[in-house]
């Protein structure tokens, strides 16, 4: 039998499995993990718990979507969590300002918070491209600056806004059992996934990350693409901030957004995006985020000692990455 005939006679089911594993291994890993945990703890697989896991994944998950763009271009953003605090402070201070009628304060606060976060993202992109400073350093420095400004503006103390359902339900409410934060995450994932996969801009994102010089010589405005990527990341941070802070209508300037950027980066990398740039998908980030977030749920459902949460989280991440290794 010739090789061609052998290929033609390959088991179609096996071929389908290979195709799924090659392109969607992160999803397979998630499903396998859920099944394993569900065997030991059936309550884990209850619909309301699955929805809760997705709800808890959604806020940092939105940040991770924007982070995907940045990392595909070969950059990184270490300011995300700090910008959550910074834009969150603006959100709560405006929303809580009794001099502004609440029906004006809420939309105004939301718009301002999102604009601030997007602007900071634009600043990150501009500084890292125009001044040719590594994004690691730029975003680290900007993050420290905005966190410090947040602490200064609130004197380090928790600030509360007006606790009204029109505001708190943004983060707590939903359509039926589906939380608004999950709906927003799904919409953002669909939109950004479409942009990345089917638009010219998306192809430029990959081109810049894959080979910046070649992209430049082929006429792509590399700096502009990178600035836009960072701006998209900032926009995602702003949206996530609104969903996050509205839940409690308050902000702790020291604690808000803590470690969000690391969870987002972990989700992006576990989801298959290369830190070297040029490769990655939104769908991978989505399921990577679920893997990162599910740990706390597992710890509580299975009543593990909290001292083991780090070991469990690290183990899940290693499991996911090892399962996806492509030889």
């Amino acid at each position, binding site marked *: 039998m010739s090789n061609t005939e052998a290929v033609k006679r390959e088991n179609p089911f096996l071929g389908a499995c290979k195709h799924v594993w090659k392109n969607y291994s992160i999803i397979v890993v998630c499903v396998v993990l859920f099944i394993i945990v569900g065997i030991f703890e059936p309550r884990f697989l209850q619909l309301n718990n699955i929805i809760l896991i997705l709800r808890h994944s959604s806020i940092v998950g939105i940040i991770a979507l924007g982070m995907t763009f940045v990392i595909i271009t070969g950059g990184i953003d270490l300011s995300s969590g700090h910008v959550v605090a910074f834009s969150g402070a603006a959100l709560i201070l405006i929303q809580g300002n009794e001099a502004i009628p609440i029906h004006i304060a809420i939309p105004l606060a939301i718009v301002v918070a999102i604009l601030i976060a997007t602007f900071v993202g634009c600043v990150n992109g501009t500084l890292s491209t125009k001044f040719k400073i590594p994004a690691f350093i730029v975003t680290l420095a900007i993050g420290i600056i905005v966190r410090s400004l947040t602490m200064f503006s609130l004197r380090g103390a928790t600030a509360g806004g007006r606790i009204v359902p029109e505001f708190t339900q943004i983060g*707590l409410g939903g359509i039926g059992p589906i939380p608004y934060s999950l709906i927003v995450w799904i919409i953002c994932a669909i939109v950004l996934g479409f942009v990345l996969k089917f638009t010219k801009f998306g192809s430029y994102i990959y081109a810049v990350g894959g080979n910046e010089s070649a992209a430049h010589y082929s006429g792509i405005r590399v700096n502009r693409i990178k600035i836009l990527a960072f701006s998209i990341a900032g926009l995602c941070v702003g949206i996530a901030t609104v969903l996050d802070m509205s839940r409690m209508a*308050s902000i*702790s300037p020291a604690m808000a957004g803590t470690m969000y950027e690391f969870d987002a980066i972990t989700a992006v990398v576990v989801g298959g995006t290369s830190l070297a740039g040029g490769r990655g998908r939104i769908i991978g980030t989505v399921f990577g985020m679920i893997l990162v977030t599910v740990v706390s749920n597992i710890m509580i459902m299975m009543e593990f000692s*909290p001292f083991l949460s780090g070991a469990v989280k690290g183990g899940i991440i290693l499991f996911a990455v090892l399962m996806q290794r492509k030889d």
Partner: protein
Amino acid sequence: MKKILSLVLAVMLLMTLVAACTEQPAPAPAEPAPAPAEPATPAEPDPEPDPTDETFTIGIVLGIMSNDFHSQMRVNVDEAIADAAVSNPNVTITAVNPQTPDEQLNQIETFLNQGVDILVMMPQDAALVAPLAQQAYNDGVPTIIINRRLPEGIPYTHFIAGDNVDGGRLAGEYIVAYINEHLDGQADVVAINMGSGMPIAQDRQAGFMSVAAGNPAINLLGPEEGYESGPNRESGLETMQIVLLAHPHIDIVFTHDDETALGALTAIQDAGRTDIQVMTGFGGTLVAFEMYQENDPDLILRGTSLYSPWMGYDAVFLAIDVLLGVSHPQDIIQPSVFVTPANVNEFFHLGF
């Protein structure tokens, strides 16, 4: 374009510097913390300086401002510095907050190199600062330790702290009393911690478990260390959302922190759970105290183990007393109290 960007960057940096250097109006001073507990072992004889002619320096290294407690402690210390500038103008006091434990070591070392007369520190990690505390002692620099005890064998002049273990115990006793009075002597209880790796969380849980462990009134759901959360509302909210799904019936919730409790409270209200009757917090945030003053009978949050950051204010004047040769007990442990709607007015001024 580059020039414009450079200008923008320079303006941002300048604004940051100006903001950092701008004097802030001193807040209105409030009452100091309640009287200390029973005296412990007397300290070594304090030095006898001449307070009228000589000038003295006090270096204060506080903790990382990671939550409202630490932020308020810094506010209280600044108030004490402002008050001391009036009462003791010959004493120069400098307070700093680190960003990391290593930075705290550098700050302590800097003060020692500058030759401060008294060193006050709130160790982020007591084991890390121990060598410097020993060095200060060897150099004859009195040290005042706030809130976190140094390792056994490391000398110090004074130790001033709240009692996390006792606070946990008081909450546990309140819960047991409630169970015996209202729940026929048996209840399902969950504990939500503020970060199992934090020593104060371990102390608070230990205090609670000193009452709960083996007590027939308490059926503790979940791990002995408590369910993992954080000292902020969002962490309390998310942890409680999962705990509510894991346990269809809960009677009482013990939390390590008021902020955690406020988040957990939102989760309970959002889920529409009516089985939970009591929640306790720890710390003394004004939001909780105001709830107690309103005394809504339907409020689940019923009590807080008070852990006031006013110990920072007291530590400043303790340091001045050391300079003046005024004796105090070596260990000053601020008594724990359990604040409820019944006694909140007595302790409201200590809230933050």
